[in-house]
């Protein structure tokens, strides 16, 4: 029982970090960025290349993961979303195709065999009698720190409030002197950074391979659909629902792990199209 609780908490923290960048884009730009998983993949590979291939300090690798996420996020906004005028269906088709193309690109450069990331933090810890790797614990803790930081950034800074304002009423934001286009660019960069960071930790607790963009994308889509156009709190709560569901099914029926999440997506779509917390808040 305590095992499930701890594993659930650790997994959910990471899931919340994975989903939050995707939710940000959906709230502000009203489009689903189906290439979001690529941010995680690029983040993971950037970390691998910088810290394991080049042998630079791990912190530089983590920064490279966030950095490439920022570049990729802003590039999608400039080169795909803006020319398509944020029209949701064409953006979704284009970003999904882009994800497949990026996967092929990563295979070309790094090959299609999975890579093993060395733990970012080494060792084992015992938490309430349960043994967990320090790496997994660090991933969850750092996720929490980033999420709390993001919460205060959105609530307490001018740019954060502007992101929130654009997500709720673009005209109201513009006549307050905010340039919605610039805020969109900032949001895509921020989302990319969060995705890239999430990718470093996700890859370090799972594995690094060119198809690794799919699983986080499903998690992120699930959180947005189940949570509704989410508040940060809604995203946290739903990430925990999904995280715990996965840990519980993995403990009792490992064969159907992941399936439950997908069934939950369909169930919520049919029964509560607005999601559990859907109201358009950021």
């Amino acid at each position, binding site marked *: 029982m305590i095992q499930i609780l701890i594993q659930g908490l650790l997994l959910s923290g990471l899931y919340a970090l994975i989903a939050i960048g995707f939710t940000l884009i959906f709230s502000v730009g009203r489009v689903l960025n189906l290439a979001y998983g690529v941010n995680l993949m690029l983040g993971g590979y950037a970390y691998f290349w910088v810290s394991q291939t080049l042998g630079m300090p791990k912190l530089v690798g983590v920064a490279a993961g966030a950095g490439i996420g920022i570049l990729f996020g802003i590039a999608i906004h400039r080169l795909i979303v803006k020319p398509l005028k944020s029209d949701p269906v064409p953006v979704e088709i284009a970003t999904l195709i882009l994800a497949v193309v990026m996967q092929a690109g990563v295979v070309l450069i790094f090959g299609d065999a999975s890579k093993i990331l060395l733990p970012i933090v080494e060792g084992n810890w015992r938490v309430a009698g349960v043994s967990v790797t320090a790496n997994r614990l660090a991933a969850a803790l750092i996720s929490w720190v980033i999420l709390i930081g993001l919460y205060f950034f959105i*609530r307490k800074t001018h740019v954060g*409030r502007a992101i*929130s304002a654009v997500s*709720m*009423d673009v005209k109201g934001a513009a*006549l*307050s*002197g905010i340039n919605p286009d610039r805020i969109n660019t900032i949001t895509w960069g921020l989302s990319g950074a969060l995705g890239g960071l999430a990718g470093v930790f996700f890859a370090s607790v799972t594995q690094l391979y060119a198809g690794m963009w799919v699983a986080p994308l499903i998690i992120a889509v699930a959180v947005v659909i189940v949570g509704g156009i989410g508040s940060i709190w809604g995203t946290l709560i739903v990430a925990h629902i999904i995280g715990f569901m996965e840990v519980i099914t993995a403990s009792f029926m490992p064969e159907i792990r992941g399936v439950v999440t997908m069934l939950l997506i369909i169930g919520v779509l049919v029964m509560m199209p607005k999601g559990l917390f859907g109201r358009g808040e950021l």
Partner: protein
Amino acid sequence: MAFLEIDNLSAFYGRAQSLHDVSFDVAQGEIVAVIGTNGAGKSTLMDSIIGMVKNTGAIRLEGADLVGRGSAEIVRMGVGYAPERAHLFPFMAIEDNLLVGGYTARDDIGRNLAHVHELFPVLKERATQETSTLSGGERQMVSVGRALMTSPRLLLVDEPTIGLSPKVCTEIAATLRRLNQEDGLTILITEQNINFAMSLATHVHVLETGHLRVSGTPEELMADDELNKAYFGT
């Protein structure tokens, strides 16, 4: 040189033209009203001034042309705008809505916020309440308050009384008059409520299907038989 000069302004939504060669001036420290029915082009006029509609002609604020500039820049130049239907941020607290208004005028936030609270004490009492739960009158207060947070020299208010009770209309009128007289703020309003506009403004312009039909002081317009027939049925 007038404070605000609107010169042969035509505005377009796609191919549809909704303003036709509109010209008028607003002097500094004046309250000017543009009246007209639904669809006359009042909101288009306001949206044009703030840079949200494609247009031709000239809109000059103290000689500087606003046409072709983005809204953010026009706000920085000193134009505050309380639009029709308010366009508030529904799931943000009142205080946060006002703080978003201070996005460009960050150095003045403390002073502006105190001034807004003094004008509308209820916005201070309910600072943490979400604006989606407010009444129409309160929403209008937040909207005007948010516009004041931009440190405007020209305040645009689009249909301030729409859907509001007579009592609230009187309060809004008193506040706008106070802003004009005590702070010297130049105000341009649009209205369907002719009596409200006439009681407040020193100059009134009548807009009909995108054309400026007649202009004058409230007294002059009251004396216009044709206009009286059209708007008051007398």
